[in-house]
Structures are given as structure tokens and as C-alpha cells.
């Protein structure tokens, strides 16, 4: 379900934003608490296709410093701006990730981004909520500062375009998604505004997280086995799941030195918590701990919505090879030109 393809469907499926507390939970009401259904073997049932359409930025924008929640009036105003700014008849550029929310705050006549490769027509519906950041800890809604080592790593990490890094010498200078190796975990989903769907399946002893983007599948054992030995490193690390009440807790270590979540790699200890808070709502909480990258651990909460839309097959390198070949060939051509200009 690529964004361009399903934009129409998503409009219909979008649900009204509900008031929330900063941790992403719906506010307490007098009603009896909703209880999660159980699978046949007694696990809380988290199954289904889940979709992340959140418009909330990962970090709280500076302009909203000290303001974890929007008022109802502010939320209404942002929705109005969204309807105008990204209406199909307004000549706006594609606003992915946090750019969407930032564009609503800035509220220009049209949204223009020189790095954008598409128009607003290709965007999915994004769901605004009261929260002003996905980050819930630290309390300022900002990712903690990088350590000096982390800063160095972020500077040298491969980027989607290698822009600012000089031309790519080889495929390894390009990002893992561009190489079709992996889109990585955890997935922030809606913030990349593209294919933010995954399916959860549960069987006795395993939970399956099947992502639509490049058919990355994680089969996570729940039987309490220990992690792989430290020497075995994988792009997606090594995940072990367990239940804490109604919450599925997935603990992941053993990432490869080439894994890359915002610059964090082999030292990342990732804890993901999945809690179904309503029939159609899943709270997805991620805690990232890597003292070699960030000065303290941090946590973000994403709300996922259930959707009846099925996942389709993605063969990442089908036809995509030309992107990489073109980039590498372009870089070599530039080198040859530069060499030709150099006096002998």
C-alpha cells in the first residue's frame, strides 16, 4: 500500500483525533476499562494490520517549548491549516516526516522544499493529535544530546543521498534502505510518510512482526530463551519477547555495527512495548538506550491504528537498482571530469 495508491482509502479510514495524555493513553473516563481480547492460547491479542499515520513530530518543535499538549482550539487551527496547505489544488511540495507538522506551524502560502521529490498529492492523510512530540521522556520532548562519539558517528553515517558527504565511493556509502538491505528497526513509520504499515501475528511461542516495507519480517520467540551470543550480529539485532500483563515487551540487542537508527548501531539496547489500548488502537512505545550515542536513554510513544487494508509484496530492488547504479555512475563521472580538469 504505497501512499500514492491508497491516499483515497486512507481519508476514509482516518479516525477523529482523540484527546490524550502526554504518554499517549486516552484520558480516563468513568466507563469500564476496555479489556484486550485473548488468543486461543491465552495471550492478549494484538493481531491485525497496524498503520501509523501520526502527524506528531518525533521531537517537540522549539516553537512549542514547554507545551506538551495543544489546546482544542490550537488543534482545530492546525487541522484547518492542513486542509488548506495540502489540498490537492494548492501547489505544495511533498512534506514527509516532521516536515508536515513544522509546515503547519509555519503556515506558509504554499509548502516548498528544495529537497522534495514529489508533490503533496502523493502524501497520506496524517492524523493530528494533542501531543506535540512522540518523545515522552525526557519530559522536554527532545531527544537527549549526542555524546561526542555519537556526534562523530552521526556525521559519518551513510545518508539517503550521500549529500554533504561527498559522492559515494561505493554502495556502502549509501543508506541501508537505499541499498534495500533494511529500513531498520524500530520503525517510526508515519514519520517517513511511506508504507507505514505492519502486521502482527501471534502463535504459541512466537510473535511475528511483518513490515510492508521491503518485507522485513521479525519472528520473535517468547519462550524465554537467552539472546544470541555477543559475537552474532544482525541488521535487525536479536529480539526476545515476553508479556508483562497485557503488554508485549520485546528486548533487542546484538545489532550489527552497520545497523543504523539515527546513528546508533551495535551498542543499541532497544525495548519495544506493544499495548492494545482499544480495539483499533495499539500503543507502541520504544525506549532507546545507547550510552555511546546519547547522553541518556529516551522513550517515544506512537499510536497505531488498526486497518482492514492488506499488506502487499514489496520487492525493493525490482527496478530500484537503477537508482543506486545511477548514483554511483554519476559520482564516478564527476570524478572523471574533475580529474580531466586537473592540470597534469
Amino acid at each position: 500500500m504505497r501512499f500514492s495508491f491508497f491516499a483515497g482509502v486512507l481519508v476514509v479510514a482516518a479516525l477523529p483525533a482523540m484527546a490524550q495524555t502526554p504518554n499517549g493513553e486516552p484520558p480516563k473516563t468513568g466507563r469500564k476499562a476496555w479489556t484486550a481480547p485473548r488468543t486461543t492460547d491465552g495471550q492478549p491479542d494484538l493481531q491485525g494490520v497496524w498503520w501509523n499515520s501520526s502527524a506528531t513530530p518525533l521531537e517537540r518543535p522549539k516553537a512549542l517549548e514547554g507545551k506538551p499538549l495543544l489546546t482544542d482550539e490550537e488543534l482545530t487551527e492546525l487541522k484547518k491549516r492542513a486542509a488548506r496547505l495540502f489540498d490537492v489544488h494548492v501547489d505544495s511540495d511533498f512534506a514527509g516526516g516532521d516536515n508536515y507538522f513544522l509546515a503547519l506551524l509555519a503556515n506558509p502560502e504554499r509548502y516548498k522544499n528544495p529537497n522534495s521529490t514529489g508533490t503533496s498529492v502523493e502524501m497520506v492523510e496524517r492524523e493530528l493529535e494533542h501531543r506535540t512530540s512522540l518523545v515522552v521522556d525526557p519530559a522536554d520532548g527532545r531527544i537527549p544530546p549526542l555524546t561526542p562519539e555519537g556526534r562523530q558517528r552521526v556525521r559519518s553515517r551513510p545518508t539517503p543521498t550521500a549529500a554533504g558527504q561527498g559522492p559515494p565511493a561505493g554502495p556502502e556509502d549509501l543508506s541501508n534502505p537505499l541499498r534495500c538491505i533494511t529500513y531498520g528497526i524500530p520503525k517510526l513509520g508515519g514519520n517517513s510518510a511511506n508504507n507505514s504499515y505492519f502486521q502482527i501475528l501471534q502463535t504459541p511461542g512466537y510473535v511475528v512482526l511483518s513490515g510492508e516495507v521491503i518485507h522485513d519480517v521479525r519472528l520473535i520467540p517468547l519462550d524465554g530463551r537467552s539472546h544470541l551470543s555477543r559475537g552474532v550480529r544482525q541488521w535487525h539485532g536479536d529480539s526476545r519477547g515476553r508479556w508483562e500483563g497485557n503488554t508485549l515487551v520485546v528486548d533487542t540487542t546484538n545489532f550489527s555495527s552497520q545497523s543504523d537508527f539515527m546513528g546508533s548501531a551495535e551498542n543499541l539496547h532497544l525495548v519495544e512495548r506493544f499495548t492494545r489500548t482499544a480495539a483499533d488502537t495499539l500503543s507502541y512505545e520504544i525506549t532507546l538506550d545507547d550510552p555511546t550515542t546519547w547522553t541518556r536513554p529516551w522513550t517515544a510513544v506512537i499510536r497505531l491504528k488498526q486497518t482492514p487494508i492488506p499488506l502487499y509484496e514489496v520487492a525493493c530492488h525490482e527496478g530500484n537498482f537503477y537508482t543506486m547504479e545511477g548514483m554511483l555512475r554519476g559520482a564516478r563521472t564527476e570524478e572523471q571530469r574533475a580529474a580531466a580538469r586537473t592540470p597534469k
Partner: protein
Amino acid sequence: MNHRWLASSIVVVALLTVGTAPAASQSRSAANLTGATSALRAPDGKPSLQGNWDFRTITPLERPASQANQPVLSEAEAAAIQKEAESRKARLAAPSEVRSQPRAPGGGGVAVGAYNDFWLDFGTNVVGDRRTSLIVDPPDGRLPALTAGAKRQVASLVEDLALQRPIRVLDAGTRADGPEDRGLAERCIVGFNAGPPMMPSAYNNHLLLVQNSDYVVILNEMVHDARVIPLDGRPHLPSSIRQWMGDSRGHWEGDTLVVKTTNFSDKTASFNPNGMMALGTGSTLNLTERFRRADQNTLIYEFTVEDPTTFTRPFTAALPMRRSDELVYEYACHEGNYGLFSILRGTRAEDQAAK
């Protein structure tokens, strides 16, 4: 496996090779497949097929001409073949001769060398019921004749042959005008043994199957392709939606899980008897796979290929899988895989030289 893929996933291969010491595989040979015990049950009462399964075997797809009238090996014959396979494996596991002399330039597309046997992991077992072919129907154990006009591609690892595009073989290919001239597994689009249908091949002949009442998930180690198969009776995708691994729907017939797959892309073969051969096109393929747990350690996997535009009759192969305690590791097919890039670059260099 393709010889041009030296750099690909060496770690995974090494782990597998280390993890499958001969003793582990030998002890599971010659399981009695006819005397099925009561199947292990999932919580919903269906047979439990869940677990890691190993489908290595040295039994060929088609019955060799030399065994034309012998559908089943005697115990002594099977033991002798397995012993020979083991000793061959031990012999080839010895250090290779070092040949570091570079080939003369302008080799004209001739292969430059390949993996030695260290990398290969076909196992050393014939299938448990000692058949001389994986094909059980037709009764002669051979692929049925092709229809007149059936598409057929046969590639070579030694040189690039002229093949009609699109390329549907898994390994090797035709010229290298672009990536589409190479096999589908070489391009990391599909695995070379994951199918569907699954067929034993050079390595990574392992899968992890998990199930619940509504879905079965088959994760093939090669190349971490997972099929998520609904069991709820929903219809197939509309015929306009075509996928590399088709569109699978499962249901139970007694204690047998039946998976029907259609909607294959026209760019796949109806059947790849091996990596270098492609018969027909997936667009007209109706594939049926059957999974039945025969005992604690054995999963009988059977598949039937029906494609009247390619084969003059349907055929069925049976491949018993053995339960494995080994882990299925992560596979990133394009990681370090310079093969495709170098093939294309080499061919462009030859193009230049020819001008």
C-alpha cells in the same frame, strides 16, 4: 548458488555449515514415513507444524535414467549412497588448492571460479522413504513433457547464453545489458530455494514455520522472505495483482495443511527444476502445497504444479523435511553483494573494448 556471488552472506553460510555437523543430520535419516504417529496439536486442535525445518537432501528431483525401473532404493543402496556423500564431503572439506594466478584478460565471459565445497550444504541424506526421485507423480519420477510452444530457458554458469527476455532463471543469466538480464536470485528478488514451491538447493535449506488459527507464516532463511498465508477462506487477490511469490491461501483438509498459490508474476517461471532452468511462466501456474506432520521429527511437504500451458500434465513432488534445532539466521542478500554490480561493470568494459 551462483559462483559470481562470492561475497554474499558468507557469515550466514559459515554459521550454517558449522551448525550442521554430520552427526546431527545422519541421525535423522531413514525416518519411517508411512507409520505416522498422532500429530502434535496446536491449541486450536489443529496439527502443529510449527518449528524449524530442514529440507536438505541429495535425492534428485527427477529419477536418474540408471534407476528407471527402481522407484525406491534398498536400505543397503541408500546407506551406500549416503556413505559416499559423506566421504565426498569430507574429502572436499580439505583445504583447496591455491590458484592465485589471474586469468588472462578478455576471457570472454568464462567463469573465473566459484565456491568450493565448504560453502555447500546439500546434506548427505536421501529422503527418508528412499525414493529415487522427489517427483512421485508421474509414476516414472520424471517431469512431464512440455507443451508445444512452452517457454524454456536454460542458462549456464560457465558462459552467458542467448536467452529470450524476461529472464526467469534463478541463477546465471544472459548478457548483462542491465540487471534484468541476470537471474532472479542473483538480483536478490527471490531466494533460490524458497519458491514457492520450496526446493532443496546449495545452502540455507531451512525454514521457520509458525501458525495460529488464522495464519501460517513460512520464513525461509533464503532470502528472509516470509509468506504470511491467511487460513480464513478469503478469496485470492484480483488476477491483475501479480507478485513474485504469488498469492497464497491456506486451508486444512483433515490433518493436512493445503496452500494454494496463484497470481504469480509473468516474470517468474512456472517451475525452476534447478537454478539455471526456467520452464513456462508463473502467470498460468496453479500451485498446491501440502504440509503434513508425519511424526515428531518429520514434516511431509508435497507440491503439485498445474500449468496446462507449460506441462502436458500436472506433476507432484514430495520432500520430507526434518525437524531442526538449529537457528534460522538473518539473511541480507544484497549485503556486500558486488556480484551483480561487477557483472554489469565487466560487461560494459567489454563493450568499450569491443568498440
